[in-house]
């Protein structure tokens, strides 16, 4: 029985669930991590999860469109990374901290 499981084709849903799990982990990282950079990385994780979904669906439809979308997402992620890290740098320069909870001068 385990053998059969291992050799048979993998249901598409599994990929999607993996994608959902990774997305969820990204969310978890965002809301539980305190270092801004880690938080940012969590977003990257979420984007990766989305990419997995795209590619999976692409397989389902046997189209390359999904791949192209992932490609665009990567570009966007890269651009975001550049800007995001620049923002983080300025924050650090001004506050000398990377703790996200410290960045809360404006509230209510």
């Amino acid at each position: 029985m385990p053998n059969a499981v291992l050799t048979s084709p993998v249901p598409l849903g599994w990929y999607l669930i993996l994608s959902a799990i990774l997305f969820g982990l990204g969310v978890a990282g965002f809301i539980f991590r305190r270092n801004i950079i880690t938080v940012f990385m969590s977003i990257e994780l979420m984007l990766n999860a989305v990419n997995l979904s795209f590619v999976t669906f692409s397989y389902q439809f046997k189209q390359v469109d999904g791949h192209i979308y992932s490609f665009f997402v990567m570009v966007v992620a890269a651009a975001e990374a550049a800007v995001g890290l620049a923002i983080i740098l300025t924050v650090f320069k001004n506050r000398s901290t990377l703790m996200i909870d410290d960045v809360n001068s404006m509230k209510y």
Partner: protein
Amino acid sequence: MNLWLIPILPLLGFLANGLLGRRVPKAFINTVAIGSVLLSFLWVVKTLLGLGAIETKYIEHYYTWIQSGMLNISVDFAVDRLTAIMLLVVTGVGTLIHIYAVGYMEHEEGYYRFFAFLNLFMFFMLVLVLAQNYLLLFVGWEGVGLCSYLLVGFYIAEQYATTAGNKAMIVNRIGDFGFSLAIFLIVKQFGSLDFTKVFDAAKGMPVEASIGILTIITLLLLVGATGKSAQIPLYVWLPDAMAGPTPVSALIHAATMVTAGVYMIARSATIFTKAPITMDTVAVIGLATAFFAATIGMTQMDLKKVYAYSTVSQLGYMFLGVGVGAFSAGIWHVMTHAFFKGLLFLGAGAVMHGLHGELDIRQMGGLRKYMPITAWTLFCASLAISGVPGTSGYFSKDAILVAAYAHAPWMYWVGVLTAGMTAFYVFRAWFMAFTGEYRGHAHPHESSLVMTGPLIILAILALVGGFAFKVPHYLEGMFTEGPENEVMALVSAAVGLLGIFLAYVFYVAKPGLADSFAKSLGGLYTLVYNKYFVDEAYDAAVVQPLLEGSRTVLWRGMDAGLIDGMVNGAGHRSRGIGAILRRIQSGNIRSYAAWVVLGSVVVLLAIGFAGGLR
């Protein structure tokens, strides 16, 4: 016949004096004030002569006042015999009092104002008398109330005077409350306010054995009448109204305005006679007022107060008269009362004038020597009010009492008792003021001819007025003449004489007896002396609760507390909600992210359920 000229002349006098009075000499004011009333009087005479016997009502239509839907109220004046009497009394006595006032008011501030108001009063009083529908009557009714207010509070710098003015107006308003309600019901019932139409319609209605619409209407009219004519329970304003200058008391609060209630009931006789319950009420109220006012009158020390309570008492007689169905007797008494009570007040004014404002009868005495004309004219008036046979009071009062006897004997006996008391206190005042030795500190002197002249004329009228003018006979066409009963009339006259005798004993023959007698009565005397504490009771039971309730419960509690509290509370609550909602905005990025997650979970759940996911 240009009836409109009758009231308009005094109105013009009012306008002229009111607008120009401050800049013109007194002579001008006098001319205008007296002239306008005199002209009015002459016009009345001319009109009445022109109309002759006035077998039917003479009506003049001027213009539509209010026209709304089917409701049509016009400005119409009418003259019938009842009106004729009233017109003569009002303008006649009015003229005399105007003349008197010239002397009396000579040194007062606001001279022009006084005459302007007096003229205005004449205008409204004449409108009241001439009105051919209830609303126009109401105009006059309220208008005279206004003038009463203005004149009672004539001494505007004095708190007591203005308060008395307010009291007069407000108590009258309470009465008018009833009157106005009656008007609404009349329109509802008859579709019109015109006397002719209303009475024509009412004639066809049956006499109401139990409370019906006519009873309600008449009771409400009665409320109005009690206010204006100072009957129980609304008489309280009249004694206070003596705060005004004495000519005012004479004209408004004795001769004319206060009798408007009687006039109105007599005018509405057609409806009243259909409502026996009301009639009884009128009679009982009149009797009670007469009696209680007389008791109070016996104890008062202020000359004008004595006469004031006597007025209330006499008005009670008139009510008794109309209440027992003797309308013409009531009107007769209105007329004679105008003579003798006007005279009493004018005389009191003359005394006051001579004593530089002193009114306490304990501070008088022996004035006969200093002011003989005043003394003897007042004596005539006192005789008349006491119902000494031959004087005017004898005729009218006895006509009432006789009618009362025919209606219910007990009313007669109470009335007779009251008549005795009346004679007692009137002569008590006279004796205390004019006989004996002078007890005061002023320099008494007789008044000028301007003042004594009217006194003399009125004294003559008071003596012969009843004999000369047989009102019931004149009004026969309108009201059935009362029964005649010589015996009962003589009994009451005898009781009157007894009263005079007692007064003589108490205050001339054996002075000091009165005090000991009063002491022996103790609490009762105090009660009566303080007018049964009615003012105080009203104050405690109505005025103060109303004020305090309005202040603490309605204003501070309801308005500022509850409603505004709720409004402001809503404001505060909004801010409170805002304060809670902005807590969401903790400034913490992770918390914000968590909100985003929360939102997405909720949205997904919603979609899931909406999509039928099980």
